[in-house]
């Protein structure tokens, strides 16, 4: 089952390598990963989607928490969190189907960010499922290149969706 871990870390050289090395060394698979600085200077948030059973997830978070640079780990329930992903996709769009592709991008609230002679590049943001749907719909026209960012997520505030996995720091 997929779980989303939101890992707050000190923004220091090598911190991402520490996190990914730990996943590799303990035999856990990372489904997607997104990293960027937060509003707090000196800290970054790593959003990791991991495919694991609940017991394995508990072990993953406990091991992660032992890293000196990890400050806080929150597991986000996909239902109770805002989850977004960005996607850039270059689609074959020749004379006769160009209009249909533009229409699809429009329906999915995307924007055309580059136009070629027989292709278009669209930018879409949204729930991962929405991006999956879009990709399926334009596949028949021909996807030339596709790049997704991996999920970023935050808990929905009022509903207390975030479940801090561990408050204690490990030794």
């Amino acid at each position: 089952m997929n779980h989303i871990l939101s890992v707050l870390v000190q923004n220091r050289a090598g911190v991402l390598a520490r996190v990914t090395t730990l996943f590799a060394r303990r035999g856990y698979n990372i489904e997607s990963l997104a990293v960027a600085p937060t509003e707090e200077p000196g800290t970054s948030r790593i959003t990791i989607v991991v495919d694991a059973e609940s017991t394995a997830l508990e072990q993953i978070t406990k091991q992660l928490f032992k890293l000196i640079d990890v400050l806080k780990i929150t597991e986000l329930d996909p239902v109770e969190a805002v989850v977004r992903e960005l996607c850039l996709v270059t689609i074959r769009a020749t004379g006769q189907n160009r209009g249909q592709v533009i229409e699809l991008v429009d329906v999915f609230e995307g924007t055309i960010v580059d136009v070629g002679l027989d292709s278009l590049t669209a930018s879409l943001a949204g729930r991962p499922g929405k991006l999956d749907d879009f990709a399926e719909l334009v596949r028949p026209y021909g996807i030339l290149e596709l790049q997704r960012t991996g999920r970023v997520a935050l808990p929905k505030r009022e509903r207390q969706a975030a479940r801090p996995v561990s408050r204690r720091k490990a030794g």
Partner: protein
Amino acid sequence: MQLTGAQALIKSLEMEGVEVAFGLPGGCILPAYDPIIDSTIRHILVRHEQGAGHMAEGYAHVTGRPGVAIVTSGPAATNLVTPLMDAYMDSIPMVAITGQVGRPAIGTDAFQECDTLGITRSTTKHNELIMDPEQIPLIVRQAFHIASTGRPGPVLLDLPKDILQATVEWWWPTDQEVTSSLPGYRPTRSGNGRQIKEAAQLLNAARKPVLYVGGGVLKARGAEALRALADLTGIPVVTTLMARGAFPDSHPHALGMPGMHGNFTAVNAMQRADLLVALGARFDDRVTGRLSGFAPDAKIIHVDVDPAELGKVRRPDVPIVGDCRLVIEELIRAIKTADAQPSAADRDATLGPWWEQIRSWQAEFPLHYEEWKQGDALKPQAVIEAISQHTPDDTILASGVGQHQMWASQYYRFEQPYTWVNSGGLGTMGFCVPAAIGAKVGRPDRMVWAVDGDGCFQMTAQELVTASSERIPVKIAILNNAYLGMVRQWQEMFYDERYSEVYLSPDLPDYVKWAEAMGCAAFRVSEPEDIVPTIDKANGIDDRPVVIDFRTDSNEKVFPMVPAGGSNDDIVVGPTPGRKVVQ
């Protein structure tokens, strides 16, 4: 005060109370070796960097203080990887300092450059590449703090050469500055009160309890507290390979070592227990055997300073995160103040049948080996018993890895904490000689003996040159059976006696000549009547190391044995083939 980075490094080590460092200089670390000449720190020049690492471990084992190793970049750093991993697996506090190529050269495949940080990321508790010379004192303080608190472990600091050569303004960070610089590191010390109360209730109600004691009790300096708990509750105590010495073997509640080569009573008491109190132990596969068959009826109280250990292998009924000594002390208070607190007589009555059962196992299945007959080579177990009987109780015993290690743990009587130095988790052959040297450096007031195998000895014997030149009088007993004995045992038992690449020869090398060439006193013992007199002779030599080549029987195997992959109920108690014990 203006210092070079190198001077700041060495001064920081001095300020941290470092008395001894084990190391070997080279290109990138050269600047750090200049201030060592003027330092109060005793530097011990090793012959191979692996030796420096294991010496630092041996030192840490017996003193409880972080051992320090200083080596250069590249091959020196990679030579340190094995001891780092060894220390990581066995939670040994250690600070390793490696040189690195200058900052401008990093990433250019410069001479003796390697990605030390990347290579040691999964073999250390923490590592840092120091890129700002002003940070040297703070990062050194952090390293010692991280290495020695929480679950102890190795920390590596990688110092580029130009950082060591830079000029810095000296400062010494306060404790407060150190902790606030590590916002992500807050080890838990005292256990949760509600969980401790729950544990006390389980302890008071148990009819077949066992205290399952691991190395964490020693790391927490908790041997005295453990003894008080055992005396108060009357519960039997097993001590894992990492915990030998945490509880005196002569204590009536001591059952000895459990696990793959544990004695029958220790293994079986855990199997039949209704409550296991795991204290700083981690349910290692060598203790549990096949997990699905391990202690099937036992409730589990698990105390560990590392929260990740709780539920990693076996889900505890009562998990307690905390320092073992503090938690045991709190547990004792909780037991004494529990509502339904049983009297001593009640306890005796409750545990009476359990102890009867245990005593009958002890009587029926003691550790044993076949008696020596004329024409046999020496019985290795007899050599260890002789060392145990003819050395002081506070003697420190080191060992390598393999049959001799298991026999040492089985047949040596450990009476005091911090008298046993061995490589448990990683199982590092070659650990023995350098670890014994490090232990002797840490406790020069104690006699240090080491039981090594002939295979292990050949891996790191060169460090006896270090010991001779530094006048570190360790005593090494080689149990020379001319084989990689443990592998041979498995090939005999599980590979139809097809011996593949395990024969080493008793005479090549000539251990006596080799030891003498390295400046040691050396003896060879082939007859049983010479064992004790030679041990006595070795005890009398205090100006140089001693090596004794004991010619032992290659047919001897380590028993009892739980076959790999088997349940602990499949324990084979003795050498008679096919003989199993069914209760």
